[in-house]
């Protein structure tokens, strides 16, 4: 995952989502989200192949009554 976000990338995703976004807004969005994307990319998190979003709920419930 790259930490770099460009206004071109934002514009492409907005177009695919059929949501209007002017050029200035694309550039602003790119600047605004770069820290979060860069931080998550830098963390290089390890996720096992089998993990899905609902794995979270199973882990939470396994802690009940600890």
């Amino acid at each position: 995952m790259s930490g770099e976000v460009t206004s071109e990338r934002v514009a492409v995703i907005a177009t695919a989502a059929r949501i209007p976004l002017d050029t200035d807004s694309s550039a602003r969005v790119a600047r605004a989200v770069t820290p979060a994307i860069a931080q998550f990319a830098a963390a290089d998190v390890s996720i096992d192949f089998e993990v899905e979003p609902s794995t979270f709920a199973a882990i939470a419930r396994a802690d009940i009554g600890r």
Partner: protein
Amino acid sequence: MSELAALTLAEIAAAIRARKASSVEVTQALLARIASWQPELNAFVRVDPEGALAAAAAADATLANGAAKGALHGVPVAHKDMFYVAGKLAECGSKLRKGFVPSATSTVVARLDQAGTIRLGALHMSEFAYGPTGHNVHLGPARNPWDPTRITGGSSSGSGAAVAARLIYAALGSDTGGSIRLPAHFCGITGLKPTSGRVSRANAMPLSFSLDSVGPLARTAEDCSLILAAIAGPDPLDATTADAPAWGTTARPLSDLSIGIPSAFYIEDLDADVAATFDNTIATLRALGAKLVPVTLPDQTAINAAALIVLAVEATSAHAPWLRTRPGDYGPQVLARLQNGLAYSAVEYLEALRWRGPALATHLASIGTIDAIIAPVANSAAPTIEATDVGAGAGAELAIQKITRFMRLANYLGLPSLVVPAGYSSGNLPIGIQLIGRPFGDEILIALGEAFQTETNHHRRTPPRM
């Protein structure tokens, strides 16, 4: 202030049940306070005196016949304007939902109705609950009862202001990135973000379906427990609540409980007042018998980033139809934040979402047998409305993230977190401290909060002039 308005939720419920005060008397007392303070605080978006007084009279008549509806019989409350009630407006702090009348009632409001509460009206909120300060370009800002030039915190801004000003005894709020806990901190009241899955979100306005929690803002931990007892538990309309354990407040002695003090992140960049309050709270809990131990938590920066990605994409997805057709009807800041959700790829979003389980497992491994983490809520007491009016410019997102930086662990990992008033700044503004629990450890937080509030009086202090 009238003696009735000064009571806690637990105290007023007991007084009404014992017929030491009638529901009508109590409702009239609060309506009078609302009439006095609403022009200054902007805490309510609608007040329903006629409906509330009729419901109060009915509650008194029922009680006169020897039948109490539930534990909160005849107690007036009000909720953030995002909890649907069939046939009543729910405008979500927005222009887009102006005039919206839902056809179904939210499970939480229905359960509080069953417990006997009556509703005084609906409370101010940040537009679509997407803002941590209490600013709202459509409604104007809610104002902090401790100093009306200061923010209430958001997004449950009216809930925070109204409870702090003793206009109501308790309110429901929602918390996706601190929206219960920040108003509790800035307004000097108690707020509980429950464990994800503990309280139904059915027919409440969504922001981020993975991160949203519904919970109470009230004056004490005991009051929060009373609300939770009424609203928690499985709901067929919200699948995330399936198999949630029943609410129970069996007390555990504090000598059995251990509290972790983070060795990094949560102790950084605190102003002197918050740092002193944090240290004092640790000392008080230690004196009460709890074991306070240092703990090294996993990288909170990665957790914050993952939470922001999940929130941004899910909010944008929920709002996509309006972003296509009515973008001009959003306030500039909310529109800008919703547009931010367009920046992430599907793979980035799903990696952030899939990582919740492993991140929770790593968190639990790091805390071992610790029952709760103690942490500040924000790095200062309430800043001014003017200083935090950051608009929609390039720096707005970073400014917002600075306010919410201690909030996202509980949302991303679905953990319960209780905020209790714990001290005051040199400028006489309240400061809260949060206790972050284990999954479904909400009752332990309540027990800790009750013990702390037995020993301290911060929750009893009222704003100046009130």
